[in-house]
């Protein structure tokens, strides 16, 4: 595999249960604050915590875009409103042209919550869904991209990656290849995943949710806490400016082991990590910190630790930030790419709120508390159902 051409993260925006925008996110990461709370979403009765975003119910879509109205697109809209992102995209559109900016997004469940409501409101006599249900612009997986095309005025290549919890990490790969092929000059990459009963009850059915706030890498970890989030990055060609972070490499693989359980020795994860290093033209020793997938399932965290130790040995600092945000599913890739970029820009490695003592069987150097350190190059891991794996390498300007 050849070394990829670095791409600037020219602008970033994010919303998680930690707050709105980069500043609130940064403050939470540095202070060790968690956004998890007992889950009350949609009258939920499962004993679980969630990283819920408040205020979405009161939101309104922009004029003329009411057809896209659903929790997932509202969440995307809320993220777009942060951090000067709309203005940065408008500026790029003026410079490059609407057809020259690609849209490479990810989501796992898109607006399925609308379909959940529609099924609850089926006509008692005929079984029909209410006429107000708009499948195409809410429930369909592409609805997120259709909304952003309209909202941002972009008409370049567009797609939605739906590879479960690796979706928005993998979308960086589609973007970098499309830019390398000359089909666009810049790209908006990211996505949104919002709370819904499908994932709350789905993960519970597999026994993968914790009754407490999730505790990645903890000896007593017993499952995930689901979070919702949206984040977007404007990727551009050219040398990074002072203080900017670039995407340097990306590796993808499949476990070919099981639909919902990782390879116990983390072989698929290791392949993605190694391919990301090769794509960045780097050795493992050049990575200063790794933001783990680390969802706090007993099997998943152990498999990732295996892969990490095999590649990096005992010295490279690593942590999962799922204890801050919860597992934001399809949005986790872009959220954690942004967390990694903040860590590089502000000189610290995030910690792991709620984690008490690290599993005695783990061999990687797991950070419990946020730690000041100069970071030049960071890796971020995202893995998902179907055995899909993706690792990103992000670095400071040279």
């Amino acid at each position, binding site marked *: 595999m050849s070394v990829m051409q670095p791409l600037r993260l020219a602008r970033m925006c994010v919303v998680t249960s930690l707050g709105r925008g980069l500043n609130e996110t940064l403050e939470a990461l540095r202070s060790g604050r968690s956004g998890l709370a007992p889950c009350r979403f949609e009258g939920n009765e499962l004993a679980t915590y969630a990283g819920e975003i408040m205020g979405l119910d009161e939101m309104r879509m922009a004029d003329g875009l009411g057809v896209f109205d659903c929790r997932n697109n509202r969440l995307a809209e809320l993220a777009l409103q942060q951090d000067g992102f709309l203005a940065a995209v408008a500026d790029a559109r003026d410079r490059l042209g609407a057809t020259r900016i690609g849209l490479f997004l990810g989501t796992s469940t898109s607006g399925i919550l609308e379909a*959940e409501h529609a099924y609850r409101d089926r006509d008692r006599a005929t079984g029909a869904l209410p006429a107000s249900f708009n499948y195409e612009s809410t429930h*369909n997986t592409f609805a997120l991209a259709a909304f952003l095309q309209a909202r941002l005025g972009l008409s370049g290549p*567009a797609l939605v990656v739906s590879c479960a919890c690796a979706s928005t990490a993998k979308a960086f790969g589609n973007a970098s290849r499309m830019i390398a092929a000359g089909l666009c000059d810049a790209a908006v990459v990211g996505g949104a995943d919002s709370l819904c009963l499908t994932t709350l009850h789905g993960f519970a059915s597999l026994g993968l949710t914790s009754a407490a706030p999730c505790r990645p890498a903890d000896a007593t970890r017993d499952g995930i806490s689901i979070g919702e989030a949206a984040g977007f990055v404007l990727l551009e060609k050219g040398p990074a400016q002072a203080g900017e972070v670039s995407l340097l490499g990306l590796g993808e693989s499949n476990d070919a082991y099981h*639909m919902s359980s990782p390879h116990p020795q983390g072989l698929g994860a290791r392949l993605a990590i190694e391919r990301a290093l090769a794509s960045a033209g780097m050795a493992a020793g050049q990575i200063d910190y790794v933001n783990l997938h680390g969802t706090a399932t007993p099997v998943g965290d152990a498999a990732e630790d295996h892969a990490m130790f095999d590649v990096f040995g005992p010295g490279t600092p690593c942590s999962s930030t799922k204890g801050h945000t919860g597992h934001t599913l399809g949005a986790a890739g872009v959220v954690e790419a942004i967390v990694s970029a903040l860590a590089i820009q502000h000189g610290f490695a995030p910690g792991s709120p709620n984690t008490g003592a690290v599993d005695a069987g783990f061999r990687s150097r797991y950070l419990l508390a946020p730690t000041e350190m100069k970071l030049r190059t960071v890796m971020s891991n995202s893995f998902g159902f*179907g055995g899909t794996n993706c690792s990103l390498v992000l670095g400071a300007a040279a």
Partner: protein
Amino acid sequence: MRVYLEGIGVLGPGLAGWTAAKPVLAGEAAFVPGEVVLPPIAALPPAERRRTGGTVRLSVAVGLEALAQAGRAACDMATVFASSGGDGDTIHEILTVLATEQREISPTRFHNSVHNAPSGYWALACAATAPSTSLCGFDGSFATGLLDAAVQANIDARPVTLIAYDTPYPEPLRAARRVTGSFGVGLVLSPQDSGRSLATLDITLRHGNASGTVFDDTALDELRRGNPAARSLPLLVALARGGGRIGIEGIAGSLVEIDTVMA
């Protein structure tokens, strides 16, 4: 952007495999739409085989047919899966249960509901650890997948198998999203001429509401319009008839134009 086509797989109403479909698409045999038989996946262990739904059986069948024609192994082959709707039967089952008091959904149904379930089962069936992605472009899903697969083949300098598929949604979802028949297509695309290629495809992305290729044959055009994966039919017809230039509508008024020259 050029790719070399090395293998074709197809499964749809009246189109049971490329060998049987070719004379139909060439206009030498009548198009008689019928029930689509989705074969079980022999390469999966019985327990896993029982868990696979229609989208998985459809996508694996057309992918394996294309690879067999290309004479390439599946295990180190990168894949791009493209579908508008995923597994509608599974989504319907989950939504039905979530509308009840109990909300207790089946764990197997849940992991089968992810858009990348066919990619996951493909990896299990073929021991494929290569990169694999699963995309959605609504009605433009085939054009989206083709563009992404061709780009990946050229930029990563490796063959890529594109698998596009869609199956009908059951009621009541069907009233909100109508998909006609089950249709799947598999294409093995290589960045170089390996000597085994069937055709060269020169692919251009155009903007500005250009119109795609349509058929005079009403039944065939109905299938093309009715299933996002069947939007590939103009390309398959060109391949069956010895080449030509066709256009397939993508998203937001884009058009993927394909110049097809047989080897």
